[in-house]
């Protein structure tokens, strides 16, 4: 396994950039895919956003100064790309945020790439009711098992605020599941 520092150097040097980029894609494609997928829900949308994320990473790696960890920087780009994708979709359709979330969930019920049972579907419905930040925090903590410190670097939010968001998200999901 190449160290992060070396990988960044290789990504920024023209003669090693191509092979380093392939290594970067191979290393992070699955993690970033699942992070994006849980935001946009649909596989085709996740595929689009993931490709755009890596393209953005490739085009901007030259300016990466190492102020944070490489994977935090990539997660941040992936998160922004996924959220922008949903915002653009909302704007194009002319619906409100909650209407778009409802449509995304309804689509999930007939999605061939969603094999969740009743409880898993209910959980996704509950997550869809959360405000954006709580949704991100819940997915990153619950499904991706990221540490608060890692999430703090990615979302540029304090650990205390993240803990509060996660706690609130859990309470809302719990009450949604009890009511439904």
């Amino acid at each position, binding site marked *: 396994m190449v160290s992060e520092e070396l990988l960044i150097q290789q990504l920024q040097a023209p003669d090693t950039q191509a092979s380093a980029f*392939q290594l970067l*894609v*191979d290393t992070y*494609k*699955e993690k970033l*895919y*699942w992070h994006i*997928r*849980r935001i946009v*829900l649909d*596989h085709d949308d996740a*595929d689009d956003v*993931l*490709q*755009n994320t*890596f*393209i953005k990473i*490739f085009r901007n790696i030259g300016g990466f100064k190492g102020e944070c960890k490489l994977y935090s920087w990539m997660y941040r780009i992936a998160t922004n790309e996924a959220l922008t994708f949903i915002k653009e979709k909302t704007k194009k359709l002319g619906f409100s945020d909650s209407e778009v979330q409802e449509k995304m969930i309804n689509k999930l019920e007939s999605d061939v*790439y*969603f*094999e*969740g*049972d009743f409880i*898993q*579907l209910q*959980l*996704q419905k509950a997550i869809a009711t959360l405000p954006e930040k709580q949704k991100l925090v819940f997915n990153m903590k619950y*499904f991706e098992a990221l540490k608060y410190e890692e999430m703090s670097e990615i979302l540029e939010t304090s650990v*205390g605020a993240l803990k*509060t968001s996660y*706690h*609130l998200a859990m*309470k809302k999901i719990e009450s949604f599941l009890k009511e439904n």
Partner: protein
Amino acid sequence: MNKKINSFKTPEDYFEGFTDKLITKLSEELTIEKKTDGFTIPDAYFDSLYQNIQNKLHTPDPKVFRINTFKKYYYVSAVAAVVLLFIGITLTNKTKITFDDIAISDIENYFDDNDLDMSTYELAQMLPIDELEIKDIIDNQLNDENIIDYIDNSIDNFEELNLDPNE
């Protein structure tokens, strides 16, 4: 001789195949873990991902009209000119109209009715941010009562705010 005799045995070649078996088991467990939220992916999706990214990376972007900073006033002028023309045609009197005569609502209506296809980034580039003040964006200044009402309606438990009582 102090060599202790190990009376335990392992199947033949047990350790030789151990790593492979462990990796297979780990990958199976990882696959199961990923499916616990119900989402799945097409077969071999990740195998072709790198090539798809490469294809997209080498496809030239469609030509996008970029609003450079030095053009921002031209753009505003162009919008103003269209609004002026519209008002000029609809008004019957011959009074000379200046930019100041255009109601803000007319400019807002023009933006509302015409799809300018501008991203928020482009709009941000166009706006003279240095001259903006918070009161330009927020019509009503927030008072304590509004803030407490908002928190009261949005937060289930005040304790979750982690407020320091000494502050």
